[in-house]
């Protein structure tokens, strides 16, 4: 390596002082980034992948944080030795950052125009000039009708547009480095592809170095030149994106690559002639004049996994909520063993609630933090008192926790004492308590890390084999659906646009919408991803 890199992190170690003692967030981390290059830091939650970026931007609160050792060299100068004013001056002007969730990272009470212009006014640009440059930037990142939208507030934009606005804000002063912390994680696949493409374009325009922090091997394959893999605060592997994928040296990297869904065998459809347990005909839900769900018809067979895929706002969750009567359907029927769930009286519905259970996306929010695991799981028996005498509750909870792979001796602990994956296991144990026939999983593994995700999916498949459960599996993650579902239903704007066996949907999709959806999902292999990208560009060029 001849010239000094633009940014270099040397032997950085950061500790956090917590109630439970000292936590080594990162230990001896070193990496470098050159002009025009894209470096990805890959890791799961808690790996410390964001810590070095926060240290660069002076965003670590000290205390509880403490930079124990190391240097961060920007153009050869150690920023850790600079005054806080000098570091503030670098932020936004030379080094900029965008974040995962643009809605919470934009100030809700100020207009987006003000917030973009503020990057410039904070560094001394006159107000009038900042305003005209902000308008230019909004046009550049593809905000339609940008003059009128200058005075709109963040909540008035879609998720993808908000991330575009964040990008405009970050690039206002043409920084040398852009740090993107999980920039597309909260976005739909097609929007993710657009945002990544925009980042690449802007990088080529400005020649900035791009530091991308992500948990997603597909994102790495799509944009990164080099990748650094982190696990529990340490770098376990570094190299070009292609080398790391094809020839991983560290067992952790190998495990991570093996856990990526979308490469396994697809399930064969169940044999025909079985009577469905659930038959939905023409289910429709209006919210005022907005049609959230339009004439949806589908069936679920016993022991079958039916996946519902679609982008946000496509009506997937409305379908689930209407089936559970969490929302009242406007019209249509949903026959459960021939009885209509939509018109059923409260008493009958109550007894049927046993058969249909739900697992939600975020176990942190769906489990009551003040109830122990035993209380959470056994609550079902309290609600449906005829199922099990109280004397047997404990034994049954023990059995259920065993079934989902949790230590039954931990039943008196509370949700916060478990990891994210374990919490979702608790939620699954709770849903199994009443021996349901159908479990509706609404993005049940979306919030989990890939390796945990694959464990939970294995658990769900195992339970299906053992107990003959059916799943209605709502997801936006196509590779996951590919590995797991028997049949796939594709939704767009409240309507079902395509349904069929999983192999048919993935290998011979009929609708353009489905094709775009599949084309936009990212493959972890950089070579395959490069090929897909050129196909996609060709498709866009037509």
């Amino acid at each position, binding site marked *: 390596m001849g010239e000094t890199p633009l940014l270099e992190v040397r032997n950085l170690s950061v500790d956090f002082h917590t109630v439970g003692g000292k936590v080594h967030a990162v230990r001896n981390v070193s990496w470098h980034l050159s002009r025009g290059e894209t470096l990805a830091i890959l890791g799961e939650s808690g790996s410390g992948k964001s810590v070095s970026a926060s240290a660069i*931007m*002076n*965003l670590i609160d000290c205390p509880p944080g403490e930079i124990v050792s190391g240097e961060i060299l920007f153009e050869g100068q150690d920023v850790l030795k600079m005054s806080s004013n000098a570091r*503030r*001056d*670098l*932020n*936004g*002007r030379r080094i*900029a*950052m965008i*974040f995962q*969730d643009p809605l*919470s*990272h*934009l*100030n*809700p*009470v*100020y207009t987006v125009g003000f917030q973009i212009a*503020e*990057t410039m006014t*904070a*560094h001394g640009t006159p107000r009038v000039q900042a305003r005209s440059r902000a308008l230019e930037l909004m046009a550049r990142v593809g905000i339609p009708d940008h003059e009128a939208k200058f005075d709109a*507030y963040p*909540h008035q934009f879609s998720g993808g547009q908000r991330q575009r606005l*964040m990008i405009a*804000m*970050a690039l206002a002063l043409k920084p040398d480095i852009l740090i993107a912390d999980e920039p597309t994680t909260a976005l739909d696949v097609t929007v993710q592809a657009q945002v990544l493409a925009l980042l690449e374009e802007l990088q080529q325009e400005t020649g900035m170095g791009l530091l991308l922090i992500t948990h997603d091997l597909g994102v790495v394959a799509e944009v990164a030149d080099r990748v650094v893999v982190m696990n529990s605060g340490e770098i376990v592997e570094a190299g070009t994106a292609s080398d790391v994928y094809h020839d991983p040296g560290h067992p952790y990297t190998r495990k991570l690559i093996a856990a990526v869904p979308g490469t396994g065998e697809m399930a064969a459809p169940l044999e025909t002639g079985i009577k469905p347990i659930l038959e939905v005909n023409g289910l429709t839900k209006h919210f005022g004049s907005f049609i959230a769900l339009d004439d949806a018809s589908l069936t679920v067979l016993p022991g079958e996994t039916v996946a519902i895929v679609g982008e946000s706002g496509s009506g997937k969750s409305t379908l689930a909520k209407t089936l559970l009567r969490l929302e009242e359907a406007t019209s249509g029927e949903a026959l459960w063993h021939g009885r209509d769930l939509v018109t059923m009286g409260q008493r009958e519905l109550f007894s049927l609630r046993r058969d249909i259970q739900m697992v939600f996306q975020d176990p942190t929010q769906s489990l009551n933090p003040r109830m122990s695991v035993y209380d959470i799981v056994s609550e079902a028996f309290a609600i449906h008192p005829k199922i099990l005498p109280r004397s047997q509750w404990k034994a049954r909870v023990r059995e259920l926790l065993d079934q989902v792979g949790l230590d039954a001796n931990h039943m008196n602990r509370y949700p916060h004492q478990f990891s994210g994956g374990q919490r979702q296991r608790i939620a699954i144990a709770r849903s199994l308590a009443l021996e349901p026939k159908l479990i509706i999983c609404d993005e049940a593994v979306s919030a989990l890390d890939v390796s945990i995700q694959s464990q939970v999916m294995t658990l769900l498949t195992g339970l299906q084999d053992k107990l003959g459960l059916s799943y209605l599996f709502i997801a936006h993650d196509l590779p996951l659906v590919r590995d797991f579902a028997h049949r796939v239903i594709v939704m767009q704007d409240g309507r079902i646009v395509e349904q069929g066996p999983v192999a048919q949907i993935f290998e011979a999709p009929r609708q353009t919408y489905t094709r775009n959806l599949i084309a936009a999902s990212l493959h972890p292999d950089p070579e395959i991803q490069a090929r897909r990208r050129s196909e996609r560009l060709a498709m866009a060029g037509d």
Partner: protein
Amino acid sequence: MKSFLGKRAIASAISLIGLIVLVFFLSRLTGDPTALYLPVDASLESREQFRELHGLNDPLIVQFGTYVSDLVRFDFGDSIRRSEPALDAVLRAFAWTLQLALITMSLVIVTAVIVGSLAAFHVGGVFDRITTFFSLVGASAPDFWIAIVAIVLFSVNLGWVPTSGTGTLWHWILPVAVLFIRPFGLILQVVRGSMISVLGSAYVKTARAKGVRNRPIIFVHGLRNAMLPVITVIGDQAAALLNGAVVVETIFGFPGVGKLMIDSILQRDFSVVLAAIFVTAVAIFVMNILIDILYAVLDPRIRY
């Protein structure tokens, strides 16, 4: 927005009517005013005459009917004690209370917001600890005790300010200062708590990453968001002051509506009590509507 204001006005009017009915009948339960107004040895005839004069002999329902028809014309009747229209007496007192409340709340809001925000910026720092200590002491000290101690110290011993009454600027200092302490402590704590959570929010992180200076981070990005929960408490405290700071007004001989109300209740001067309740209730309803409007002004996500 207009339809929201219309609905709020109608809802307020309904509650007001309910209040008027309730207060009329409840105040009739406190006893016979003739016993208070006339000497103990007054003859039965003169008692009867007094009752007849003030309509106290009519059946309750007739008294209520007269009262309502007068009310529609904003005629609350005359004060028995003061022989002037009750409403005049009340409005005069209310003007004093309103001034006192406005001055006190303005001082409270400005100081509590600035001090609370700065305390939140360095949680656990020396400034934070000192302000937290004093605001908690202030919020928990009983105001009648503070008022008396203040009179003893500053008026009687040091002679810096008058003990009671109104007239000069000096007369205002003690009442305002005593009324200031409790809402200041309370609102400061709410501002501090709200600001701490706002300063930990994601958009403040964005602002730091943009290179925004500390002062605009606190007072531009932080404050407007932090004010939303604070406004609710401000409204609550302001309502208490508008009702008349009964104890403090009495101690300082301040001719506000709180003192007037207490005096009138003790004297069974019903028309004044009713008029006072009516006026303060209207003031509080108006203030609540203003607070709702303020919410929408501060937070563009709130639209009625």
